[in-house]
C-alpha cells in the first residue's frame, strides 16, 4: 500500500465587467476575437491598466480561504513564448500573491478535512487555441480575462477528497459572487499533481502532473487511474517518470511530455503597474463584507437549529436559498416548518419554473406569515402549501388569498362536532367497524371525510381529537 499525496492548482475566471488589464468586455462569447482590445493582442506600445474589481474579488476570495493578504498589490511578469500568450509574458503574481497560508475546511463524507492553501494569486488568462491538422487558430476573447490561481499544499489523499474540495471551492466562489465558475465554459479548471509514497516513509515520491481538467468527475477518474497505474509500476519496482499527462475519454491518462528541466520563467516585477499599498481600513471593510460560508451555515443548522443533516446540506448548498431560509427565520418563524416549506414547496417551485429564488414571487416575509398561520393552527400545513402554490401561480400575496377565499379554519368545537356527527351518521358502517371490530383505521377515514365536507377548513388536530371522543362516546353508548 502506498500513501497518496495530491496537490491541486485551480484556475478560476473572475466575473468582472472588463478584462484584467484592458477595457475589453469580460463576457463569454462564441464569436471568436470579438471581445478584444489592443492590450489583449500584445500590440507594440500597449500598457496594462489594472482592474480594481478583479483585485477586490481576488483579495476577498483569499480572505474567505483564510489567507494572509499582502501589504501592497504588485504584479510580476512570467516570461515564455507560446502562441496563446501574445505579449510573450503573462502578468501574474509571484512576489506578493493576494493570499498565502490559508485553508478551506471541507466536508468529506461526515468528516471535516482541512485543505491547506499555499497561495492565491491574480493573473490573466491566455488566448485559446483551436488546433486543426494543418494549422491552428487563435481566439483572443479569453486573452486577459482575470484569473485567480489557487495552489493547495500537497495534503489531499484521495480522489474523493479532491472532488469534495473542488466542489466546496466552487461553492466559495459562488457564495462570494466572484465567479460563475462554470467548468463547462472552462471558467474553472484544475491541474492535479499526484505522487505515491511508501507507507511510513517521509520522502515524497516522483510527481506526475495532469493539466487542465475541466470536469470534477474527471479529476476523480484521473486520480484513481493514476493511483492504480503508479502503484502497479512501484510494485514492479519500476520508477515513476516526472511528466505531464492528460486524461483521455477512456478514463485513462496518457503522457504528454516529460519534464526534463523546469522552465525558467525569468520572473521580474511588472514595471508598468505601480505598487498599491493595501490600507488596513480597506482590508477590514472587505473582511466585514465576507458572507458566512457553506460549511459554517451547515454546522449552524445542525447544531443550533437541530435541523437534520440532509436538510441542512440542501439549505446550505446555495447561498441565495440559504439567505432566503435565514431571512424567513429572522421573522421568528418556526424552524421545522420553515425547513419543511423551503426544502419542499420553495425548492420544487424553483425547479419547476427554472428560476432562482430571487425571482420568486413569494418573499421570505410572505412565507413567514404563511408559516405563522400554520404554526398557530389557523390553517393546516397541507393547506398552507396549497395556498403557497396558488399564490405563486397567481402572483397574489398568500395572506390575501387566505382572507379572500375565506379559507379560515374551523376551530369552533361545537361547529366541528356538529360536522363530525353528520359525517358519522352518514357512514354508519365505519362507526360499526370501530365499535364492533375495534378498527382504528376508520379514524383516518373520518378525518378525510370531515375535511372533505368542511371544504378542508376543519382544524385537523381538533377534528382528530373530537372524532376520537365521538367514536368512544358512541361505543360506550352502544353498549
Amino acid at each position, binding site marked *: 500500500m502506498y500513501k497518496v499525496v495530491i496537490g491541486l492548482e485551480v484556475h478560476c475566471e473572475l466575473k468582472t465587467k472588463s478584462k484584467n488589464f484592458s477595457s475589453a468586455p469580460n463576457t463569454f462569447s462564441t464569436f471568436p476575437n470579438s471581445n478584444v482590445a489592443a492590450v489583449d493582442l500584445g500590440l*507594440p506600445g500597449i*500598457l496594462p491598466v489594472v482592474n480594481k474589481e478583479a483585485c477586490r474579488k481576488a483579495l476577498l476570495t483569499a480572505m474567505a480561504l483564510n489567507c494572509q493578504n499582502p501589504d501592497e498589490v504588485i504584479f510580476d511578469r512570467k516570461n515564455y513564448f507560446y502562441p496563446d500568450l501574445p505579449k510573450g509574458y503573462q502578468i501574474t503574481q509571484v512576489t506578493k500573491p493576494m493570499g498565502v497560508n490559508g485553508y478551506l475546511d471541507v466536508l468529506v463524507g461526515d468528516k471535516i478535512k482541512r485543505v491547506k492553501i499555499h497561495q492565491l494569486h491574480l493573473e490573466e488568462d491566455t488566448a485559446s487555441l483551436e488546433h486543426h491538422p494543418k494549422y491552428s487558430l487563435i481566439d483572443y476573447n479569453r486573452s486577459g480575462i482575470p484569473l485567480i490561481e489557487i495552489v493547495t499544499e500537497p495534503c489531499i489523499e484521495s480522489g474523493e477528497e479532491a472532488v469534495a474540495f473542488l466542489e466546496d471551492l466552487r461553492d466559495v466562489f459562488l457564495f462570494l459572487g466572484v465567479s460563475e465558475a462554470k467548468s463547462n465554459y472552462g471558467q474553472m479548471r484544475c491541474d492535479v499533481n499526484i505522487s505515491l509514497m511508501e507507507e511510513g516513509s517521509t520522502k515524497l515520491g516522483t510527481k506526475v502532473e495532469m493539466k487542465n481538467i475541466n470536469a470534477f468527475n474527471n479529476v476523480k477518474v484521473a486520480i484513481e487511474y493514476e493511483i492504480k497505474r503508479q502503484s502497479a509500476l512501484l510494485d514492479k519496482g519500476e520508477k515513476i517518470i516526472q511528466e505531464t499527462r492528460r486524461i483521455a475519454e477512456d478514463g485513462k491518462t496518457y503522457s504528454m511530455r516529460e519534464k526534463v528541466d523546469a522552465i525558467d520563467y525569468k520572473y521580474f516585477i511588472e514595471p508598468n503597474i505601480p505598487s498599491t499599498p493595501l490600507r488596513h481600513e480597506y482590508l477590514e471593510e472587505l473582511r466585514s463584507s465576507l458572507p458566512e460560508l457553506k460549511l459554517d451555515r451547515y454546522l449552524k443548522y445542525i447544531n443550533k437549529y437541530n435541523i437534520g443533516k440532509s436538510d441542512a446540506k440542501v439549505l446550505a448548498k446555495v447561498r441565495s436559498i440559504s439567505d432566503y431560509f435565514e431571512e424567513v427565520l429572522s421573522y421568528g418563524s418556526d424552524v421545522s416548518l420553515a425547513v419543511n416549506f423551503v426544502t419542499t414547496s420553495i425548492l420544487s417551485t424553483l425547479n419547476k419554473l427554472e428560476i432562482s429564488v430571487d425571482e420568486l414571487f413569494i418573499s421570505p416575509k410572505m412565507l413567514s406569515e404563511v408559516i405563522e398561520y400554520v404554526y398557530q393552527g389557523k390553517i393546516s400545513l397541507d393547506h398552507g402549501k396549497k395556498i403557497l402554490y396558488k399564490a405563486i401561480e397567481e402572483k397574489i400575496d398568500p395572506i390575501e388569498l387566505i382572507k379572500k377565499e375565506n379559507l379560515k379554519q374551523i376551530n369552533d368545537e361545537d361547529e366541528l362536532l356538529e360536522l363530525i356527527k353528520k359525517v358519522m351518521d352518514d357512514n354508519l358502517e365505519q362507526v360499526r367497524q370501530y365499535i364492533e371490530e375495534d378498527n382504528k383505521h376508520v379514524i383516518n377515514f373520518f378525518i378525510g371525510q370531515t375535511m372533505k365536507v368542511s371544504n378542508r377548513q376543519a382544524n385537523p388536530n381538533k377534528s382528530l381529537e373530537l372524532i376520537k371522543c365521538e367514536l368512544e362516546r358512541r361505543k360506550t353508548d352502544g353498549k
Partner: protein
Amino acid sequence: MYRGKNITKIRELLDKKVITKEEVFEKATSLAHYFQDEYNSFVTILDKVKIKDSDSLLSGIPYALKDNFSTRGILTTASSNILKDYVPVYDATVYKKLKKAGATLVGKTVLDELAMGGTGTTAHTGVVRNPWDKERMIGGSSAGSAACVALGIVPFAIGSDTGDSVRKPAGFGGIVGFKPTYGRISRYGLFAFASSLDHVAICSRNVRDAALVTDILKGQDPLDMVTLKSENVKYVDTLNDDIKGKKLFYIKEVCGKDFYKDTNDLVLKKVITTFHDMLDKCRDKGFIIEEVSIDMDLLTALYPAYMCISCAEATSNNANLTGIQFGPRGVGNTIEEIIFNARTEGFSELIKRRFVLGSYILQKENQEKLYLNACRVRRLIVDKITELFEEYDGMIAPCSGGVAPTFDSRSEKLSARYLILENHMVMGNFGGFPSITIPYTMIDKLPVGLNITGRVKDDALILNIAQKIEELTGLKDIYAKVGEIDV
C-alpha cells in the same frame, strides 16, 4: 521664410495669415524630401494631412514623430525588419494629443533599431547623418528626430529617451532635448524598450518651445498607470522667473576641471574648459554652482547597471515580436521553429546580443547577482542624487566628452572615466528626474551640449533654469544651414 523658424515665429506667420497651415505643411515636407537622401531622418514622410481646427498654439505647426510611436494607419517600424510592414491599429496618447492640438505630422523618424543604441546607425533603412557634418553621427536612438530639428525641417520632434536617447543626439545636433519627470507624459503607444526607464522626450530649437510642447503633452493618462496627476500649471509661464540664488552642482568625477588635467584628448580638454567658462557666466548671472564628489565605484557601476536593467526589460518587452500576431511570419513546421526563424531574420545582431544578455541576466541563477544588484545600484545612485537635490536645485554637466563622433571612429573608449562622462545622463532615467540638454558652445564648428537635471516633478524649475542659461550661450534657435533650398 519657413525653414529654421521656431514655434512662436511660425505661429505669428499663421496668425497674421502670411502663410496657411497647408503651405506650412507643404514647406516642411518639401524640406523633409530634400534632405532625405543625404541625412536620412525619416522612415516615412507623409504626403497629406488632415488639420484639426484648434485654438492651440500648436495648431498648424509641423512636427515629426519617432517611428516607435503607434500611429493608426501609418506605418510604424521601430526601424526594425521585424516591423518593417507593421501598420498600427491604434494611436499613442502623445500622437492623439498632438493631433487634437492641430499639430501636423510631417513624418516618422529613424531610430536605432527598437530604440536600442546610441549611434543612429542601426536602423533597417540605414544610418542617420549629422547635419553639422555628414561624416559624423548624430547619435541616438532618437537620431532622425534630432536630425530633422537640427536641419530646420520642423520646429520640434518627439523622441523617446531610455538612457539618454534624446538628450545625447540633441547635444550632438546643437538642439534642445527635454525629458520631463517619469510619468509626466503618457507612454501609452510608445513601443517599450525598458519600461521603467522609458520617457517620452522632446527635441526643439529653444527651451521655450520644449516647454510649449510639454504643456500640450503632459497630464495623467488612464491608459498609463504610472502617469502623474495632472497639475494646473503651464511650464511656459514660469520660464522667466528669477533664478538668483538657485543652486546647481556638478560632479567632480564627471566633469571636474582637475579630474581631466592630464588628458591628451584636446577636444575633451576644450569641452571641460568651455563648460567651466559657461559655469562662470552662470555664476555672474546669479546661480550658485558648487562641485560635489560621489563615490567613483557608484559612478562606474552606472553603465553596467543600466545595461543589465534595460536589456532585461527589453528582452521581455520585445517578446511580442514573434511574427505570430503581426510582422513577417517565420517559416517552420513547429511553432518553436516559426518563432525562432521570424526573430532570427527580424532582428540585427546587436539586438540579438542585447536579448541574449537580458535573458541571461534574468535567469534564475543569475538574477540575484546581475539583475537585482543592478536594481540596487540604481537605488543607491538615485538616493544619492535625491539627497543632493535637498540642497541643490539641479545638477549640471556636459552631455559628452566630445563632439559628435565620426562614422569610422572605432575607438572603444572603455576607460572608467570615459564611461562615466559618456553615460552620466542615464541618472535622469534611473530616478525619473526631469533633464534637459541645450547647446552651450561650438567646438570646430560642431555644437556641444550641456545637461541640467533636477528634482522629480520640478520640471518647471529645470526649464526655467535652462532658459536662463540659454540666454548666456547665444546658441538659441540654431540649426545647420546646409543645402541649397529656400522655403
